[in-house]
């Protein structure tokens, strides 16, 4: 029997910190990502492509905002709410930000309890994450309703530059779609955890591979990415 050629990094899997280690991993046999399961590597590559999609939206938004000669509507005023008789600027968006960050925190802990095979805690935390995500989508629906009621359309609005509506509906709409899909998948993963599919290594739908708690981490990567995109939308669209 011939032995496979061992490259310098194939023996030990300690993370090499240098560029030399990167070259060794990438030029080695079979796998470039030594410790990441295939599901995690594929999720990261998907998220990389999604990064480019959202970046295209945000850079287009920069383009139209820089090139318009009409004044841009002030997001601080557009998204203000009157609470307890006081007009508070941008408060709805601030609450949405805190809701999404909290859901990211519970998701991170769900991953941790998943690897500890703590079924109950993982299920509860995944459910809280899904509920916070649904809350976020609900608040976004409220925000859309309010703005449409005020006459904001993709082709124009009473507050200023016409491009405001197009950017707003496109960017927040695409992000909201991501959150909604995430909520659906969080519920699916939560049910799998609750039923013990992952403990009993039952194959999932559309695959013969055995179930395991790595899917919770992969789900977590997607969910944190949704939060990550919101950080950029919050900074560039709402605060700028």
């Amino acid at each position, binding site marked *: 029997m011939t032995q496979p050629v061992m490259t310098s990094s194939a023996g030990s899997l300690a993370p090499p910190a240098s560029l030399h280690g990167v070259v060794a991993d990438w030029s080695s046999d079979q796998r470039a990502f030594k410790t990441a399961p295939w599901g995690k590597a594929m999720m*990261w*590559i998907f998220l990389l492509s999604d990064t480019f999609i959202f970046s295209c939206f945000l850079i287009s938004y920069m383009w139209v905002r820089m090139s318009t000669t009409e004044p841009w509507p002030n997001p601080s005023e557009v998204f203000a709410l009157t609470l307890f008789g006081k007009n508070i600027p*941008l408060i709805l968006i601030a609450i949405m930000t805190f809701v999404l960050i909290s859901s990211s925190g519970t998701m991170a802990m769900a991953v941790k309890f998943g690897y500890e095979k703590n079924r109950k805690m993982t299920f509860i935390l995944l459910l809280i994450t899904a509920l916070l995500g649904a809350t976020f989508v609900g608040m976004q629906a409220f925000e859309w309703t309010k703005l449409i009621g005020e006459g904001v359309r993709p082709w124009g609005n009473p507050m200023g530059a016409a491009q405001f509506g197009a950017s707003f509906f496109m960017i927040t709409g695409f992000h909201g779609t991501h959150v909604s899909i995430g909520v659906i998948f969080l519920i699916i993963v939560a049910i799998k955890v609750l039923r013990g599919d992952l403990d009993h290594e039952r194959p999932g739908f559309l695959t013969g591979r055995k179930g395991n708690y790595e899917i919770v981490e992969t789900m977590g990567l997607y969910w944190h990415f949704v939060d990550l995109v919101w950080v950029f939308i919050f900074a560039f669209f709402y605060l700028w």
Partner: protein
Amino acid sequence: MAHAQGQQHPIGVYLKIWGLLFVLSAASYLVDYFHFQGYLRWTLILVFMFLKAGLIVAVFMHMMWERMALVYAILVPPLLLIVLLGIGAFEADYTFFTRGKFFGPGSVPVAPAPHR
């Protein structure tokens, strides 16, 4: 198949980062609340944004515990976006200039080219 190597870290790490993200979000909201303007506003927004994004990617998404081969494969390609950003800014600036010149107040209406 890859040997599964679970990412297991003490819960305190996540709770601390969660708290930090809350503080940073509150700070970026206060930038708007106190009506900071101009370069101070933009700098603060960008600083808080990059700190939050970094914490999420590094800790919540476990990037700081991954091998460099994966880190580089994911984090280096987005740098290409700087080129798109530059092209966009350059083009938008020019469009703004031409709009001001030909459609803005005091601009001379362009005479149609004579037909031959």
